[in-house]
């Protein structure tokens, strides 16, 4: 698994957008270092998570989106929140306005933006949590403080 991630990191560097693509000042996609690098076949990521006794979560994000920034800065940075999520979840970030092809845990494939529409994602940030069969088990929408956010992730790990 580690070589695969390393390979992906190298590929990502090589595929970096040319500088001329953005005359506008660039904005970073908010991201946690412990998010999982993915080839975006989420069936694989779901199997990997399940094998490790974890669950797969998708984080829908958008560059510059204020509630996304707030969630990262005030909630995901919380030691209890990030420790709990890292222990129990593999998190893959997707771009709400993106055009990368992604295969969902249920096997459907689309680019990110139409996939977000198909999944009825109201807006960024949204977390989708999947069960081992690839069905969505929980959805967490918008900015929440650490206590509320953690409670929903805890609930999503409870046996059905």
């Amino acid at each position, binding site marked *: 698994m580690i070589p695969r991630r390393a390979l992906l990191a190298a590929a990502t560097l090589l595929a970096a957008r040319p500088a001329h693509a953005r005359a*506008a000042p660039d904005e970073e996609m908010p991201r946690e270092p412990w998010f999982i690098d993915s080839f975006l076949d989420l069936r694989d990521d779901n199997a990997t998570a399940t094998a490790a006794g974890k669950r797969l979560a998708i984080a829908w994000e958008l560059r510059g989106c204020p509630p996304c920034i707030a969630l990262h800065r005030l909630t995901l940075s919380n030691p209890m929140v990030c420790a709990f999520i890292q222990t129990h979840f593999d998190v893959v970030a997707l771009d709400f306005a993106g055009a990368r092809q992604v295969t969902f845990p249920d096997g459907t494939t689309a680019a990110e933006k139409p996939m977000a529409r198909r999944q009825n994602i109201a807006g960024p940030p949204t977390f989708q949590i999947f069960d081992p069969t690839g069905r969505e088990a929980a959805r967490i929408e918008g900015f929440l403080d650490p206590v509320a956010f953690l409670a929903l992730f805890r609930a999503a790990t409870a046996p059905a």
Partner: protein
Amino acid sequence: MIFLAALLAAPIASAQTISPADPATASPARVDAAIAATFAGAAVAWMPRVTQDETQRLCSLRRNEPTQAEADSIVARESATLVMPAETTVLGNWRNGEKIAQNGQGGQFSDAPGTVSGGNCYACHQMAPAEISYGTLGPTLAGYGRLHDFKPEAARAAYAKVYNPQSAFACSSMPRFGHNKILTEQQIKDIVAYLFAPDSPVNAP
């Protein structure tokens, strides 16, 4: 433009008895022909507004869901059209910006001459947390400047997004306010000040 096509589909259907709901009959050529016929007698000054540029053509063709290569080409082309203010600061007067954000006037063929357009920002975005009436098509902008640490480069990025949202997000639903000359440079600066001034209601806790 898709919206326009939908509006035009009804009269076509009644004239030629083709179901407007059948996507197979709504080819780009048919839509172009319908628009040309509808606006044949319109004022010449209107024509730029019913003629698609390459970005609009691609976004219509893909129903606002471009491929990665198309999205990259749109962002590159639209970024190249950005006209940024010469000065380093892009912050105008937030009090004026608030009025512009609340103003939904302009852009209508029936406008009285001299009508000053607003940004109509609240139609799609939450801005000041105290305002209870806002749309949710776009992400909330509450706390925008505060959450961007009031950084000048973030304010410039916001200016660019208002001037031409497609320079950041290909096939964005947001109007290209500067590019299409809906708002002036000063008006966009005032809106950016509304987002970024520390004492703006947008940044109220």
